[in-house]
């Protein structure tokens, strides 16, 4: 259901209604494409469209102007129906220079709209972009796409001329010109952006005025130019009623942690060391000092988790976060957290690996690191959000599990979720249920001795905090004696504690919701996914269903322990497909645990799945598959403890 089709060019300035539009704004890092994208996103959200965005930053801070490495892109899909991804192919591409054009053109669908800033095209730019000649001269371009060349820079200069700004200042406004043009093209109102300009540049009135003029000029240009015969209209989407806000994943995580702290009557401690793409959580949380949030930028990741454990020992809600390489450094301390049985959250915002890898790209290849990357048997619960807005939810669930089971809980996010955004329905704070947390009270000399490793029905030990009279006790990384927590080298005690720490994690499954599926309860194909691939998988499965295939989708948010009914589910389908942005990590865990011949759909390119590639893969299995073997009923129990 594409939006812009050449055939639609009938009456001049016609307005055409379309279901959804995917636009990418691409230019030099200096051209302000991220700002343009964010504005377009918010404006569309305010219009009531469903939205999904995906920014694509250059790997360098400011790669040299005009180079391919310096291209910064922002993709947004806005639609009148429910959408789950920023879109596979572009309906429209705005390219501010040759580098932006050549690096993005392949994502523009045939017949799609290409808008270029003609002033950005000259010999100097060709050299920088490493293209021999002007790419616009390539005849195939006009055969394939609807190309519109606009001298945005000069038009912007004219628009702001009367203000007598320097040329530099004037040229800086050109992204607002582009914005105005795009707004006209897709029937977006100017007011939200005008408000933004007023707020942001209030202190520099002349800049504010210039940007506003550029914006209006862009709009006017669309209105008047011959270049565009049609503009396009996207009706509001039918979202669940409520008040909405556009949310990025890292922001949602930060806010979710805030909510969890408030729900449990705790103040938040956040210990971290900056690393892409996790740093923004720190930048967000450190704004909330008036919420009692203490952020600690440590000297390294080990110090960050050490401080987190220390704060947890003191009775605070403590959280640490990093990305793959930093998580590796936290491994030893996480093991201590498991031994101490203190509640805390460890967040991994995954990026391309191994080693330094592809820091600005997305990947899901840290699952096994978090499952097994510690010495000895040291199991921890692992949760993964399925979308930017879901981060708000997952953060609170993670804390609930942490305090109920007295254990460090892992949240596996990724770069795609962290920087992507979608509408988030603002909850009613007054209706948020409290998260129960209790600390044992003081004891007098006479009372029976305090047992720091005596367990409750969840196998959780009491969270006794320093300052409490009579509860003085020592914790540490040496094996502890059951109940007393004293150091113990007793062989049977060690076995008992190893088993208990595992059972404590396994038991969490009893308290978690059962796995649901989207689609038939049983059938040919079950697609099992986790984390940021939710949107692509869900949409792909829906398409396949519409094409009449017998396929269902189970998106797993709880990776350890796995949902209690997952084994049964897998058994109800002929084929189990597991799309992952890694080489098959969840796939391996499920094969081991359930002895089901799960088949991986794997992509490790630093990029999310496209819907169409998934549809294609799934379709490939839609016809007569060999029956899958399933012996999980026989082996489930025994194997469970082993998967730890």
């Amino acid at each position, binding site marked *: 259901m594409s939006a812009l089709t050449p055939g639609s060019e009938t009456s001049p300035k016609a307005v055409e209604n379309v279901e959804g539009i995917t636009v990418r704004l691409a230019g030099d890092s200096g051209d302000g494409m991220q700002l343009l994208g964010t504005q377009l996103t*918010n404006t569309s*959200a*305010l*219009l009531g469209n469903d939205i999904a965005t995906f920014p694509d930053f250059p790997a360098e801070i400011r790669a040299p102007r005009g180079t391919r490495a310096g291209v910064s892109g922002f993709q947004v899909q806005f639609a009148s129906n429910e959408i789950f991804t920023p879109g596979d192919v572009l309906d429209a591409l705005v390219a501010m220079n040759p580098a932006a054009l050549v690096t993005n053109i392949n994502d523009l669908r045939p017949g799609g709209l290409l808008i270029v800033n003609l002033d950005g095209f000259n010999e100097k730019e060709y050299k920088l972009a490493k293209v021999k000649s002007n790419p616009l001269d390539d005849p195939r371009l006009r055969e394939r796409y609807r190309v519109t060349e606009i001298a945005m820079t000069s038009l912007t200069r004219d628009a702001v001329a009367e203000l007598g700004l320097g040329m530099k200042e004037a040229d800086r406004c050109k992204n607002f010109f582009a914005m105005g043009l795009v707004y006209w093209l897709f029937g977006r109102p100017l007011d*939200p952006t005008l408000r933004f300009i007023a707020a942001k540049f209030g202190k520099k009135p002349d800049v504010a005025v210039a940007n506003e003029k550029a914006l209006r000029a862009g709009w006017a240009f669309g209105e008047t130019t011959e270049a565009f015969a049609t503009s396009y209209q996207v009706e509001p989407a039918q*979202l669940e*009623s*409520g*008040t*909405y*806000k556009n949310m990025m994943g890292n922001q949602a995580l930060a*806010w979710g942690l*805030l*909510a969890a702290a*408030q729900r449990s009557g705790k*103040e938040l*401690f956040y*210990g971290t060391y900056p690393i892409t793409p996790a740093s923004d959580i720190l930048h967000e949380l450190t704004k*909330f*000092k*008036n919420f009692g949030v*203490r952020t*600690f930028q*440590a*000297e*390294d990741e*080990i*110090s960050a988790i*050490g*401080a*987190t*454990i*220390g704060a*947890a*020992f*003191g*009775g*605070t809600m*403590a959280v640490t976060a990093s990305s793959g390489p930093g998580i590796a450094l936290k491994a030893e*301390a996480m093991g*201590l957290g498991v031994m*101490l049985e203190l509640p805390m959250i460890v967040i991994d915002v995954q990026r391309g690996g191994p080693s330094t890898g592809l820091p600005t790209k997305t990947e899901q290849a840290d699952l096994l690191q978090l499952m097994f990357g510690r010495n000895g048997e040291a199991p921890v619960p692992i949760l993964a959000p399925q979308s930017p807005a879901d981060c708000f939810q997952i953060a609170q669930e993670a804390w609930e599990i942490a305090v109920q089971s007295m254990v460090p809980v892992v949240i596996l996010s990724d770069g795609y979720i962290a920087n992507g955004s979608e509408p988030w329905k*603002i*909850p009613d*704070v007054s209706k948020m249920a409290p998260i129960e947390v209790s600390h044992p009270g003081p004891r007098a000399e006479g009372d029976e001795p305090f047992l720091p490793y005596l367990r409750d029905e969840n196998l959780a030990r009491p969270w006794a905090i*320093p*300052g*409490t*009279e*009579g*509860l*003085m*006790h*020592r*914790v*540490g*990384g*040496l094996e502890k004696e059951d109940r007393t927590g*004293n*150091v113990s080298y007793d062989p049977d005690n060690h076995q008992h504690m190893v088993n208990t720490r595992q059972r404590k994690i396994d038991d969490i499954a009893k308290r978690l919701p059962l796995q649901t599926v989207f689609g038939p309860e049983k059938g040919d194909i079950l697609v099992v996914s986790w984390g940021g691939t939710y949107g692509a998988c869900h949409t792909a499965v829906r398409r396949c269903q519409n094409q009449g295939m017998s396929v269902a989708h189970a998106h797993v948010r709880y990776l350890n322990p796995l949902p209690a009914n997952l084994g049964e589910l897998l058994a109800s389908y002929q084929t189990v497909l597991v799309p992952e942005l890694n080489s098959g990590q969840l796939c391996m865990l499920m094969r081991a645990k359930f002895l089901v011949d799960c088949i991986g759909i794997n992509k490790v390119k630093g990029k999310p799945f496209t819907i169409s590639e998934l549809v294609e893969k799934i379709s490939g299995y839609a016809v007569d598959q060999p029956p899958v073997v399933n012996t999980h009923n026989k082996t489930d129990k025994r194997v469970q403890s082993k998967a730890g």
Partner: protein
Amino acid sequence: MNLPVLKATDFASDQDIRWCPGCGDYSILAQMKKVLPELGVPREKIVFISGIGCSSRFPYYMNTYGMHSIHGRAPTFATGLKTTRQDLMVWVITGDGDALSIGGNHFIHVLRRNLDINIVLFNNRIYGLTKGQYSPTSVEGQVTKSTPMGAIDHPLNPLSVAIAAEATFVARSVDANVKHLGEILKRAAEHKGTSLVEVYQNCNVFNDGAMNYAQSRDLRDDHTVELEHGKPLIFGKDRDKGIRLVGGRIEVVNTSDVPADDLLIHDEKSKDSTLHYMLSRMRYPDFPEPIGVFRDVQGVATYDDQINAQITQAKQIRGPGDLQKLFNSGDTWQVA
């Protein structure tokens, strides 16, 4: 409220002590138990955090809260605890390997942040728990399990490094000198900000007598000089030797030849740390090694005070956080 008066024995936990007979750790433990009651802090308000090593077993023997953490990282746990729980008195117990080898980075960073905790560094110039490899404070040429032909690393001077890392309280004492040790531990506890106490501790199994010159009754007077604020540096059995400063350099003189007020007068309060640094460079056998408080500078903001001050300030300026208000801030839209 009037606290129950506690005795040293009230601070003993019920765990058997597992150090070698004759280990210097015992006397440090004894002094700690003796000093704590004098501070009037209830046991439940005290936390001992250690890394890994013989010395780091310390917390198990104290009837307070404690954490025997992982190797070299004790200051990090203390940082999270103290910044969120300023009401607690936090001690870090560490060894020369724990603090200066694997833990060197946390060591300098906790000092420069001036977190209000007390660090006691048990320096036996050896890795005890792993049975006798050389440590960053082992002397050059020292033959150990891992250096059969002698250690080739130039040793780290813990106090020089600490002073250079902006430490506000730096002191040294000796396990065998129990009275002095007790006083220094007390001074450390009283200082606001990070207090570092290096204790010369004898490992009689793997490095016996390494610091005998500072420990034995008949040697220590001639090879150590006790620092006292505002007093000249005088030492020797017969207190006949002194320290003088000439042209920014230190020299040993006979008190008989030099009038007392020409001697170096110790100023532990000096903000400028150069003189304290100079004292830390005095090394056996060339010089008597200073024991006592090298540096005790008050009034430098502590990390825990500052982080909490920003919280209070933020609350005053913006009012206590209102989640609903935050959620509704910025661009939002209604769906009917």
